[in-house]
């Protein structure tokens, strides 16, 4: 990554207001940011600060109340006008891979079958060739014929990551990916994400409570009350 890498994600003045009864909850307050190809960005902040809401909007899983979002130069949302659901589906599968705190593996499918699950709906050209490499990269190659019930939590999250990567996304979105894991497994996943970013050039947007995990990112954005409170670049990375 360098300052000259192209911008893959650009958000301008995003606002999200939830309505609960007669109450309006402003979850995101005028957030603008841009993310370059190959960047590793971590969102941190106290509980309820809007991290999940923001990453969902950036990942086109939710719509902002107002504001503008462009991906790869293409406007996805502009002041409440959103692409059609089918166009959004395309954007999601072309650009994003998602991982969450829970793994959502299908218990009756093997590790390998779970990883290949996205192919039953959509297969990006050339994606097949990568399968073996991705399983190896994530260190679950030797587990590929096991069922999810037979492997550890850390391995399950690796399977979920492999599944998110199988269609070669441009951006990996991870919301609390280590929330269900102990410290050691968390560190392993952290190392893995770092490796994916450094060696594969994958753009990663990470949400976490865990300061140690956040520190592996190049850029840490701290949210408070739905707004960007502080932004810092880590020193361990050359510009």
């Amino acid at each position: 990554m360098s300052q000259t890498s192209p911008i893959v994600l650009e958000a301008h003045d995003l606002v999200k207001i939830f309505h609960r009864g007669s109450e309006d909850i402003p979850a995101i307050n005028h957030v603008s940011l841009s993310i370059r190809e190959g960047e590793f960005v971590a969102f941190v902040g106290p509980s309820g600060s809007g991290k999940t809401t923001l990453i969902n909007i950036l990942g086109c899983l939710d719509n902002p109340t107002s504001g503008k979002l462009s991906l790869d130069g293409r406007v996805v949302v502009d002041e409440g006008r959103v692409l059609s659901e089918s166009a959004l589906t395309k954007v999601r599968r072309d650009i994003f891979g998602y991982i969450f705190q829970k793994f959502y593996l299908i218990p009756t499918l093997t590790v390998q079958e779970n990883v290949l699950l996205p192919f039953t709906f959509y297969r990006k050209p050339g994606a097949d060739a990568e399968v073996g490499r991705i399983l190896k990269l994530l260190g679950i190659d030797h587990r590929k014929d096991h069922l999810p019930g037979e492997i550890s939590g850390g391995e399950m999250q690796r399977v979920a990551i492999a599944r998110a990567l199988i269609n070669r996304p441009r951006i990996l979105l991870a919301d609390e990916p280590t929330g269900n894991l102990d410290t050691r497994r968390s560190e392993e996943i952290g190392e893995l994400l770092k490796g994916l970013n450094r060696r594969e050039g994958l753009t990663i947007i990470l949400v976490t409570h865990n300061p140690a995990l956040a520190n592996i990112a190049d850029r840490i954005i701290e949210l408070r009350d739905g707004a960007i409170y502080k932004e810092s670049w880590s020193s361990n990375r050359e510009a």
Partner: protein
Amino acid sequence: MINIFQVAYKNLLRKKARSALTIVGIALAAWVLVSLLGFNRGYEMSLNRDIDNLGFQILVTAKGCPYEAATLMLKGGTGLRYMKADVVAQISKEPEVDEITPMLMQAVFDPNKGESGGYSAYLGVDPATFPKMKSFLEFKQGKWFTDPEALEAVMGYEAAELEQREVGDPLLITEKNVEVKVVGILKRTGTQDDGTIFLPLKMVQKTFDKTDDLTGIGIKVKKEASISKLEDKLYQLPDVQVVSMSQVKQTIMTLVSTAKVMVFSIALIAILISVVGVVNTILMSVMERLQEIGILKSMGATAWDIFKLIWLETLILCISGGVIGAFFALGTARLTDVLIRRLLPYAPSGGLVQINPSLVLLTFGIVILIGLLSGVYPSWKAGRVRPLEAIRSQVE
């Protein structure tokens, strides 16, 4: 590699007991359906065959025994009335008549029959016309008598069995003390012919002192001719009544239709219950998997992809249930036959439940249709799940 069929199938394996119970429900519905359709088909086939085996389409009998005439011919019986033999000549003049055969039935009590005695039914038939009309009758031994006055008899399969006669054996007409010689024994037909002893008409008339009397006249109508037109003319004859076999069939069908309505209502209820079961199962599994469906959508699955997946799961349940139910129905056809026979006012001889491949296919068609229909709502609901669902539950 992996395809959507495997995913659907393996999804069903996640709740084995629930899937199995749903399949059992569908299998029961399919079983009821196949059995009933089989019955519907078999009953009409058997009835048609019974009636075709009479060899004639119209039976003219003496006035005074309404539909008993039909019962008489179908089942054998007593309470006979007579008409004069010259009616035959009169009827023969009608242009619609193809063949005509006079008959005289007599029933004689035989004290030596069975444990407490019983009736022997003798049917006097004309050797010139009767064998020709009933040309489908096959002989186990011997052949028809040819002399209209010969002291000879042809025995139905069961009659011969009961009396333990072979061709060449003598047979005594009890009350009359006349001995005849058995010249032929028929093969089993599954109709009342099996229990009948056929004698030459003239000889019966003489023996029973009914020289000028007949109990029935069988008429075969010319192929192109109108049966109802002939019937109208026959109604004009005095002191006779006309029983058309299509009418007999109609009457029996009406009697049976009440039973059929009941039986088909049961089938309908069974199907409805299984539809509710399927919808419930699939809906439940969709609700349990909202988050997972959200994930699938975030992976790039479209609403239609999800719809297909859930629809497939429904179809797999229905098809497995359908296959099991159909084979079960085939296996229990005999049992169903016995059960249904008890419910019916009149049951023809032969298999009542006739299951054939096209019927099984029809049932598969219905079951698949049920699956497709009952899958629509849950599938549509699943397709509408937003990918956000997957994450939402983490917030709470």
